[in-house]
Structures are given as structure tokens and as C-alpha cells.
């Protein structure tokens, strides 16, 4: 088994999804090469070479590859694919954008969003928003896989002894041009890897009221999430969305506030260790999966929660 991983990074930092993907791949085999495509990525390439399980980093460092345009990346992977039995990438918007292009050019069926690996050709993936789990076997000679990062541990950042190899590759004209990116800046933990997530739904009623959520999140050092309804209503931006078409999170503690619990939202959070639901409607489906439910008006409950957390913090100090 020889495995190629497509690394996700932003030219300055390696995304944690890369560490989860290496860990997933290590369940299939021990020959793991990591392809890093970007601009000014010397440090990133060196960093990944030190990760556990990594044999070799292949670094394509070129200004033309700065913006992770899928149409430019897939030819790079295809050019080296024949050396590998498996190609892995994280099932993030980055990996989802590139990997199906690789699969079709190699004429293999991609297996998306793998959450468990049974063997070198058999994988488990959620379907129907996680309401069913499919155990699937790939009959293609080469396996093209995206993995759900939160379903796998991260590998250790030290202990590896990979080598770095540089790759030259002419960028193909793609007729797709990067214009700009609008990224939410926040000092809080990243949503997809946070230990605690506090999420708000339509019950918050306005963008201003989301302050109640951020106040609690600050006190718990938590990330903020949202239901699709809250994002659609414009309370917060799309990168906060948890659910079938948003992010999948598995924190130790997930606090759902003013979220009714549509199937599509549950798909993104029901693997959380402890789930708390605060909702006015006692019949809300979210209570069926919550470890602790509180049927209350969130506009009363959240300020109370805030002061209870203050009390707790002052006792500890």
C-alpha cells in the first residue's frame, strides 16, 4: 500500500484536517507521501515532514498555485497517481473541490466523507445526513478517498523523519481566476476542532441577540456555531453553520440554544460527547438527543447561565 495525501493549508499554517487525514491513511498502510501545493510553503513542507507516519513530502512551491484553484491542483495529483494505491484528502470544502476531479480523470469512483476504515478497500461513510451508515467496498484498482476530519485523531506533529522533495509542475491555464476571500476573523477556537461549541438557532431572533451566545462562548472558551436557519436569516455568516451541508463537529460539549433540531442540523453535531439543549418548546426534537435539556426562554436562561458560569469561575479562582 502506497498512499498519497493532499495537504490542506493556507500557505502559512497547516490545517488540522491534514493531521486527521494522515491519521486516517495510517490505518490503510505505512508508506505515506504528502503532497503540498502552494506558494512560499518551504516551512510548511518541512513541518509536515516531521509528522508521525510521513515518509515523504512532495512540495510544489510556485506563485501560480497560491490560491488552491481545483483545476490547477488535479493535474498535479493525476501526474503522480500511478505510484499510489490510495489517494486521500480531507472532506473539507478544499478537498471536496479537488478530489472528484482526480477520481474522474483516473476513471475511479470516489468514496466521500469516510468516517471509519475497515480495510484497504472497505470504508464506512454516512448517507442520508447520517441517518444511515454505508459500509462500501471499492472495486477500483486505485482508491480515491475523502475523510471526515473529525472522525479521526490528529497525528503527532513530531516523531516523523520524512524527506522533502521538490516538484516542478507547469500550471495549466484554467480560465478560473481567484478574486478575493472574506474570512471571519476570531480569537475563539476553530469551530471544527473546538472542545466546546455554543450554537444558536432561529430562536435568537436577530444578529444582535447572538451576543448572548458569544458571551457564553467567551466564558467557556468555546467556538460559536449556528443552525442553517440562523445563517439564512443573516444572524451570522455561513462559516458558522453546523449540519449536513455545513460543518460537522464532535466537541466534548455542544450547547444548542434556540435550535429545534432538524435532521439536517443533527447530522452535524449528534456525535458530540455531551449535548445540552435550551429551547422554549418542550416538544422540540433536539431534546430527544440531548443529554441535558432545559425547557426555558433563552432570553432568561442565557443571562442566568452567564452569571452561573461567573460564579463557577470565581470559586475556582
Amino acid at each position, binding site marked *: 500500500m502506497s498512499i498519497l495525501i493532499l495537504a490542506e493549508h493556507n500557505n502559512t499554517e497547516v490545517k488540522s484536517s491534514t493531521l486527521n487525514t494522515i491519521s486516517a491513511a495510517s490505518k490503510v498502510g505505512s508508506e505515506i507521501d504528502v503532497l503540498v501545493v502552494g506558494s512560499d510553503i518551504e516551512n510548511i513542507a518541512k513541518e509536515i515532514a516531521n509528522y508521525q507516519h510521513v515518509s515523504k513530502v512532495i512540495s510544489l512551491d510556485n506563485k501560480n498555485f497560491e490560491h488552491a484553484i481545483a483545476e490547477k491542483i488535479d493535474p498535479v495529483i493525476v501526474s503522480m497517481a500511478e505510484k499510489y494505491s490510495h489517494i486521500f484528502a480531507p472532506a473539507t*470544502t478544499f478537498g471536496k473541490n479537488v478530489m*472528484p476531479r482526480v477520481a474522474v480523470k483516473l476513471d475511479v469512483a470516489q468514496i466521500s466523507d469516510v468516517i471509519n476504515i475497515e480495510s484497504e478497500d472497505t470504508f464506512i461513510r454516512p448517507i442520508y445526513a447520517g441517518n444511515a451508515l454505508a459500509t462500501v467496498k471499492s472495486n477500483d484498482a486505485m482508491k480515491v478517498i475523502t475523510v471526515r476530519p473529525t472522525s479521526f485523531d490528529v497525528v503527532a506533529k513530531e516523531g516523523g523523519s520524512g524527506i522533502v522533495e521538490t516538484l516542478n509542475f507547469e500550471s495549466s491555464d484554467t480560465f478560473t481566476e481567484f478574486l478575493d*476571500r472574506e474570512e471571519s476573523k476570531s480569537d475563539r477556537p476553530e469551530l471544527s476542532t473546538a472542545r466546546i461549541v455554543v450554537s444558536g438557532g432561529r430562536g435568537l431572533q436577530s444578529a444582535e441577540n447572538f451576543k448572548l451566545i458569544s458571551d457564553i462562548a467567551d466564558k467557556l472558551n468555546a467556538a460559536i456555531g449556528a443552525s442553517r436557519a440562523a445563517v439564512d436569516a443573516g444572524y451570522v455568516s455561513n462559516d458558522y453553520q453546523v449540519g449536513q451541508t455545513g460543518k460537522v463537529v464532535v466537541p466534548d460539549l455542544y450547547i444548542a440554544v434556540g435550535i429545534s433540531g432538524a435532521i439536517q442540523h443533527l447530522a452535524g453535531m449528534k456525535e458530540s460527547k455531551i449535548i445540552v439543549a435550551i429551547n422554549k418548546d418542550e416538544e422540540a426534537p433536539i431534546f430527544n438527543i440531548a*443529554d441535558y435539556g432545559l425547557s426555558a426562554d433563552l432570553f432568561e436562561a442565557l443571562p442566568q447561565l452567564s452569571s452561573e458560569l461567573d460564579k463557577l469561575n470565581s470559586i475556582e479562582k
Partner: protein
Amino acid sequence: MKILVTVKRVIDYNVQVRVKADNSGVEKENVKMSMNPPDENAVEEALRIKEAGKADEIIILSIGEEKCQETIRTALAMGADRGILIKATDDIEPLAVSKLVSKIVEAEKPGLILMGKQAIDDDSNQTAQMTSALLNWPQATFASKIDIEENTAIVTREIDEGLERVKVNMPFIASCDLRLNEPRYASLPNIMKAKKKPIDIKSAEELGVDIKPRIENIKISEPPTRQKGVMVADVAELVQKLKYEAKVI
């Protein structure tokens, strides 16, 4: 310009999906079927582009069993012009779908292809990207805004980090996010009119595409169920439980 829009017939998003007792799949008998939700956004966007005078025909393509005609009719009732059904079993994989779409593109020569970003049944999120690669057309996935100019378009994409804007040359393929627009309801007169709109029926064999599945379903199983927990009386009790029982804060 012609716009090609693909639509998939799936179990309605409100239905609680049940796994069959023999683990061979999920229960589809007597279950409400609907158009895949982001495909509705793709149809709506095509209609808006046409209404803005930037397109003159909208073709709806569906691939699957005979009943997919109902899904095509829904799109025709929203205002699309004509339909194409390629008959296949409903477990057809994205790889085969993208090959079939490419065949239709060769014949119809649209200037734009719109698809939903993901089907809510198999959750694969592959077909648009695969089709783009096969056709060597630019791709703009997870689109929440599409502005078409003369020979280019500017597309806003919803990515994990926030929003990204790309400029693509026409023709291109976009996969549509749920926030792209608010799909319209079909009016009764339009539903009546849609019954007369043509649907062309083809098969994978006549298009010369091998649609044999590459992936074997070993089993479909229930996910582990969560036990319903306890209701707490007030916030103070909640905090106590989280601190001393669950030990998560």
C-alpha cells in the same frame, strides 16, 4: 444561451429515513420523494438568468428510473422549457452520472451548467466537479451568488473559512448552495402548462456510457442511537450537572 440544469429525485428532506431490516438499503416504499433541495436552487437560478435576458432556453436533465419524470415536471412547472430523462437504476454513481451529463452537453452545447452542490441521499458532493473535469470547463462549486457578464461570470463560493469569489470564463459549471436564492413555487396554471412540455427519454446504452457501479454496498446500517437524557429544572442545575456529573466545564 442554453442552460442545462440537473435534478435528482430523492427521499423528501422532511422524511425520517429508515434503514431496512435486512441492511440492504433504506426504505423507499410509500415514502415521499421530492427534488433534491439544492437542485431547486439550481433551477431557480437558471430561471432568474433567463428572466434577466441572459439565456433563452432551460433544459432539465434527470438520470434515474421512470419516475424521475415527475421531478423533471416539477422543474418544468417552475418555468423550465424542456426535459431529458436518461433511464438508469437509481443507485447510479456520480462517476457514471458525470459521463452521461457530458454526453448531453456534447449534443446540446449549453453555455452554462447548474447543479445542486450535493444530493441529500448519498451525500457524495462529486458530480459537478467530475463533470467540470471531463468537459475541461471551469468549475465554481458551492455557489451562493452568480453574476453573469459578457463572457465571464463572478461567483461567490461558500467555503469552510467564509466566502471566496472567483471569476470564470464561460461556459462553466456551478454547483449551487442552498443560500443562492429562494426557489419559487409553481403556480397552478404553470403546473398545467408543464404537462405539455416535452421530455426526451434516452438510455445510457444509446449514449454509449458504461454505468456499472464500481462501489459495492456491503451493508447499510443504523447509526448508533443516542439515549434521551434528562430534563433539568433550571440553569443552576444544568451548570451543576455539567460541572460535577458530565465534567465537561
